[in-house]
């Protein structure tokens, strides 16, 4: 039991981080970023190169992942999404653009990094074994770092000027403009921040699960499930969705093990029923 909870929390923290980035981008610009998983993968490969191959410290590698993805996200907003949103009033235009960038990233990642699964040396050795819980130290470290990042993100949105500007933008764009919020600037910052979260998580996780060029799509799907559970565009919803999915996965892998690989089948079915009852998720309101 304790083991299941510990695993769930560890998974939940990293999932929530991915979902936060996705929900931020959605809340700010109504864009469903289908390329979110690919951004995670890109972050993973950058840490793989900087830490695993160049041998620089892990912290530096993860920072490199974050910064690179922030730049990539900023450029995507500035030169792709902003232009499309200005020119087209149809919502599906940005969805198609997001899907196209996802395919593009997939192709680039495959070309540059190949199709092999890549891993890096462990960041901390040893295993925690007490209170009925067995958990390698590196998972504990990654889980804690993820938790700190989540708290940092919440504090940033609540207490800083850019944070308040982004919340205002998500709640009422026109009103935010009338308050003097520079819409273009803060939308770009938000997109960059969302991409950065994906990149950092990918970088952190490469130390545990490794990375390969094919996992972008599946990660995106998980991220979308989380914001479906929690409610799109809501910070608390993304966090709740992340931890709920992490917990369900952890429970499922233990309880359903004897029935084979059916955990996600069950989760999908449960999600469909849940959404038919509560289509806006648990907290279906933007930016509380």
């Amino acid at each position, binding site marked *: 039991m304790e083991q299941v909870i510990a695993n769930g929390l560890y998974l939940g923290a990293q999932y929530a981080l991915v979902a936060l980035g996705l929900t931020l981008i959605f809340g700010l610009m109504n864009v469903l970023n289908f390329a979110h998983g690919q951004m995670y993968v890109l972050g993973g490969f950058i840490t793989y190169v900087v830490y695993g191959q160049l041998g620089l410290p892990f912290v530096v590698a993860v920072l490199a992942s974050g910064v690179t993805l922030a730049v990539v996200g900023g450029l995507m907003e500035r030169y792709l999404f902003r232009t499309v949103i200005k020119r087209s009033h149809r919502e599906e235009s940005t969805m198609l653009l997001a899907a196209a960038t996802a395919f593009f990233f997939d192709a680039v990642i495959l070309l540059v990094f190949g199709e092999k699964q890549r891993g890096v040396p462990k960041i901390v050795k040893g295993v925690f074994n007490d209170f009925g819980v067995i958990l390698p130290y590196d998972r504990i470290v990654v889980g804690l770092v993820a938790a700190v990042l989540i708290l940092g993100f919440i504090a940033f949105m609540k207490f800083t000027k850019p944070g*308040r*500007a982004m919340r*205002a933008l998500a709640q009422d764009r026109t009103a935010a403009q*009338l*308050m*003097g919020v520079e819409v273009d600037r803060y939308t770009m910052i938000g997109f960059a921040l969302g991409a950065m979260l994906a990149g950092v998580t990918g970088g952190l996780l490469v130390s545990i699960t490794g990375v390969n060029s094919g996992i972008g799509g599946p990660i995106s799907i998980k991220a979308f499930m989380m914001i479906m559970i929690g409610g799109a565009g809501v910070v608390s919803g993304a966090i709740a969705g992340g931890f709920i999915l992490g917990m369900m996965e952890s429970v499922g892998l233990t309880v359903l093990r004897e029935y084979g690989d059916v955990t996600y089948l069950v989760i999908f079915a449960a999600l469909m029923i849940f959404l038919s009852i509560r289509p806006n998720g648990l907290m279906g309101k933007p*930016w*509380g």
Partner: protein
Amino acid sequence: MTQILDFRNVDLFYDHVHALRGVSLSVNQGETVALIGANGAGKSSILRAITGLRRIRSGEIHYDGQRIDGRNPADLVKAGIAMVPEGRRVFPYMTVKDNLLMGAFTRTDKAGIAQSLEMVLTRFPRLKERYGQAAGTMSGGEQQMMVIGRALMAKPRLLLLDEPSLGVAPKLVQDIARSIVAINRDENVSVLLVEQNSRMALRISQRAYALTTGVVALSGNSSDLLSDERVKSLYLGGEL
């Protein structure tokens, strides 16, 4: 008398809809000017043009002696133009406090912001009671007071109000009208007031413009317009 706002011969379009046709109007320093007209006459479009939310096709807009058409909204807030938009547009999931602070977004003078906050809360004591409450959960009248307060937090010199009586309980309309008069008198701010409630608007303003389908049909002193037969039949619904 110096003009704080001079709106000259402006044309504005939404795709093929010609919403403003050569509209000219002005607001003098310290004045309250009313802008009345039926639904779709173009009242909000005038305010959107002034604040830079919508580009004009031709004409010129001058504020405080400077040409401002083409400048972006954030710039104009800094220059001292604040707007209370139609339909209030509160930030529904933010507290009253955070909403008010958003009004001071472009300001950096901490002491000045604290002063403005104090002034707003004194002027609208209801907001003090609701200070930590999410703005979306308040009544229409309370929300209206809050967005007027939010606009004042920018320390504006020109305040644009778009239908502040809309969706507000009748007995609160009086209160809001009184606050507008007091703000204009005490806060060194000129007011351009858009209203469907023409009688109220004409009573609290010095001058007024009546708009019909994108054209200024009538203008003059508010007290004259209030007793003008054409105004009575067109904008005051006949009864009096």
